[in-house]
């Protein structure tokens, strides 16, 4: 039996290996995705994002436990940044997920951003597809809400949860990061802290003033104590409500269409670049750069020339 068939049949080792292959990219990744793609499309994909230390991993752990109580099966992708200096990473989200224990219906995978913007978004979306094909009913992606890459990842989710914490001063993190627009659900975690009520009111005000994701969905602002599980069932209720709203309002279809369109064109770009690298020798690429630098050819014409050569397969 091949790896993909084994994975589809529930072999967790095969699943883990398939994820590695897909994350690595290249021909094998494309073959694997080609084989499993028709089994995807069932899972509810949930993004959880927010500042470092907000309690995202702790919350994700509790969400997974609550989802299991409601007989969902849960896969978690925890994304942490790669060190730009060494290319290495310490992925520590699993520390908070130990209570998940030995349960075949929970699967946790840590991912490093591996530097490239866009790249991590593509890799996560591919890994989501693998987990979706492996029949997990809910897939949670945890990212640190700090930059463009994280927003990109959040855009792949059906439902995005933005986690805030009390005591960030007047400047609620969401404004800075510009993630107000991507939130479907707000969670004020660490509600055991004094200023939780204040943070909740600030968010409320911001929501009334600012732009939200969709005028027809007003994001609930919930509070949790992730360390004790308090408020977690309400978050899971909200996830289910949002998902129901997405499908009943027809938004699921429009959003998925938009996502697939974006992904398609990103892939076209990626594949063309890959073909260029494979088919146009480095020396010729350098020569072309030199011609642009010498202003003997304009960048548009140079780009067209490269694409033409990739399509021709001349080398």
């Amino acid at each position, binding site marked *: 039996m091949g790896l993909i068939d084994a994975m589809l049949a529930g072999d*967790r080792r095969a699943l883990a290996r398939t994820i590695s292959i897909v994350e690595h*990219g290249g021909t094998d990744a494309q073959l694997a995705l080609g084989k499993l793609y028709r089994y995807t499309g069932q899972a509810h994909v949930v993004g959880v994002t927010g500042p470092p230390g907000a309690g995202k991993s702790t919350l994700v752990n509790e969400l997974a436990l609550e989802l299991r109580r409601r007989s969902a099966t849960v896969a978690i992708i925890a994304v942490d940044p790669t060190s730009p200096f*060494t290319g*290495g990473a310490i992925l520590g989200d699993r520390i908070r997920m130990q209570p998940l224990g030995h349960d075949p219906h929970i699967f946790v995978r840590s991912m490093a951003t591996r530097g490239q913007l866009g790249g991590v978004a593509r890799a996560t979306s591919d890994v989501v597809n693998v987990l979706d094909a492996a029949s997990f009913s809910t897939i949670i992606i945890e990212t640190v809400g700090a930059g463009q890459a994280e927003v990109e990842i959040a855009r792949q989710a059906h439902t995005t949860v933005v986690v805030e914490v009390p005591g960030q001063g007047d400047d609620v993190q969401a404004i800075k990061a510009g993630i107000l627009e991507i939130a479907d659900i707000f969670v004020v975690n660490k509600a055991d802290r004094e200023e939780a009520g204040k943070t909740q009111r600030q968010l409320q005000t911001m929501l009334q003033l600012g732009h939200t994701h969709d005028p027809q969905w007003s994001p609930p602002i919930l509070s949790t104590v992730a360390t004790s599980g308090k408020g977690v069932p309400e978050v899971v209720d909200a996830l289910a409500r949002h998902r129901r709203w997405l499908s009943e309002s027809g938004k699921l279809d429009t959003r998925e269409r938009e996502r697939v369109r974006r992904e398609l064109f990103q892939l076209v770009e990626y594949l063309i670049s890959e073909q260029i690298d494979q088919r146009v020798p480095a020396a010729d690429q350098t020569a072309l750069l030199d011609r642009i630098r010498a202003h003997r050819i304009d960048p548009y014409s140079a780009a067209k020339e490269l694409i033409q050569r990739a399509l021709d397969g001349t080398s």
Partner: protein
Amino acid sequence: MERKIRVLVAKPGLDGHDRGAKVIARTLRDAGMEVIYTGLQQTPQMIVDAALQEDVDVIGLSILSGAHMTLLPKITKLLRENGGNDVLVVAGGIISDADAAILQREHGVAKVYGPGASTNDIVDFIRSHITPERFAGAEL
């Protein structure tokens, strides 16, 4: 693109400090590896589950409690039983030479490091002992 080496750094057993494990985690990160760090008081089952889900090349175990002769063989056995034969297991901690020899000879621990081990040696050992293309040619 070169494949990243993935390492699970875990601390089995009940002793309560993880300074050594954290030093190793940082060293491996600085050597360009992806380190999955799972924290204190890991049972063999937790370690093996994590290693297999994360599809790591290496498990690095830090163990100071003195329980290495029971915990390490449990981990390697569980790993083998669950199809993780290709995962390299290295251990560090206060382990006597005699125990180290038994662990390496009979229990599938690839290498045991004492408290004074050079971190560079550990990095070099991992680099030269993992299978560089562990999943190349996997039948899809």
